[in-house]
C-alpha cells in the first residue's frame, strides 16, 4: 500500500471538520437545507480549475525541459481534474433537480463545464492512443496548454452570457457577497478538498512514474503496435509489402 503520509491524515481531519461545519452552518433563507450542497459543489469546481492550471504549468514545463516529471504531473493533474469536474457536474445536478426542477438545462455554465469535462477526457484518450512515450507527452502537452483556454470561459460564462446559474459570489472583484459564517464553512471545505486533491495527485503521479518504468523496458519504436494479431487482412496469394 502507498505510504500513509501526513497530508493524507490532514485530508481526513479536514474532511471531518468540513462535514461538521456543513452540519453546523446556518440555514439559507431562500434555499433552506439544499444550499449546503454548495459546500461540496463549489470546492469540486474550484479544484478542477486548479488541476487544469497545474496541467498548463506542467505541460509548459515538459515542452521546455523534456523532463518526465512534468509529464507525470500533467497526466496526474488532468485525471484528478476530470474527477473533480465530473463531481461538480453531478453535485450541481443533484442540487438543480430540487431547486430548478431539472437535472440538466442548456445553460452556458453547465454546457461549458460539460465541454471542459469532455475535452480533458479527450486528453486522456489521446495519451492512450499514442504508443511512443515522447510523442505522447508532446501531443498531450500541446493539448494541455490549448485546453486551458476553457477555464476562464467556464468561469466568466455567468458574466458573458445570461445564465440560470448564479453569478460568482466569492471569486469576483470586490468583497464576497456571502454571509461570513457561510463563507468560513466554504473555506474550510475548500481546504479539505485541496488536501484530498494533493493526496490523489501524489498517488496518481506515483502511478505515472511506475507506468513509465514498466514501459521503458517494453517499448521500442520498431515493435508492432498491438502484436501480429491486428495486421490488415491479406488476399490469398498476395504478399504483404
Amino acid at each position: 500500500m502507498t505510504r500513509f503520509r501526513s497530508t493524507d491524515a490532514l485530508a481526513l481531519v479536514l474532511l471531518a471538520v468540513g462535514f461538521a461545519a456543513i452540519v453546523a452552518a446556518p440555514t439559507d433563507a431562500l434555499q433552506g437545507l439544499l444550499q449546503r450542497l454548495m459546500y461540496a459543489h463549489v470546492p469540486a469546481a474550484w479544484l478542477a480549475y486548479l488541476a487544469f492550471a497545474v496541467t498548463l504549468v506542467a505541460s509548459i514545463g515538459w515542452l521546455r525541459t523534456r523532463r518526465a516529471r512534468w509529464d507525470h504531473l500533467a497526466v496526474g493533474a488532468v485525471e484528478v481534474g476530470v474527477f473533480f469536474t465530473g463531481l461538480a457536474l453531478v453535485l450541481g445536478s443533484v442540487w438543480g433537480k430540487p431547486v430548478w426542477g431539472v437535472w440538466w438545462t442548456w445553460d452556458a455554465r453547465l454546457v461549458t463545464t460539460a465541454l471542459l469535462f469532455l475535452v480533458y477526457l479527450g486528453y486522456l484518450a489521446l495519451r492512450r492512443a499514442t504508443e511512443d512515450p515522447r510523442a505522447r507527452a508532446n501531443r498531450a502537452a500541446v493539448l494541455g496548454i490549448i485546453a486551458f483556454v476553457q477555464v476562464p470561459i467556464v468561469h466568466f460564462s455567468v458574466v458573458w452570457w445570461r445564465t440560470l446559474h448564479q453569478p460568482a459570489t466569492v471569486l469576483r472583484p470586490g468583497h464576497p457577497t456571502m454571509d461570513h459564517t457561510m463563507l468560513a464553512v466554504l473555506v474550510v471545505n475548500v481546504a479539505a478538498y485541496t488536501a484530498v486533491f494533493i493526496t490523489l495527485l501524489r498517488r496518481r503521479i506515483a502511478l505515472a512514474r511506475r507506468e513509465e518504468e514498466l514501459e521503458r523496458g517494453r517499448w521500442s519504436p520498431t515493435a508492432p503496435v498491438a502484436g501480429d494479431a491486428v495486421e490488415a487482412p491479406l488476399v490469398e496469394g498476395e504478399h504483404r509489402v
Partner: protein
Amino acid sequence: MSDLAWVVLGLSIAYLSMAGYLLSLEVRRRRLDDAGGWP
C-alpha cells in the same frame, strides 16, 4: 424527496466518490507492481 435527503445524497456522492477514486489508484498501483514483478 425531502431537502435533507437531497443533501445526504449529494454529500454521500462526494465522499464516496473520493474514497472510490483513491481506492482505484491503489488497485491500479498494485496491478502495476504485480505486472512488473515488484514485491
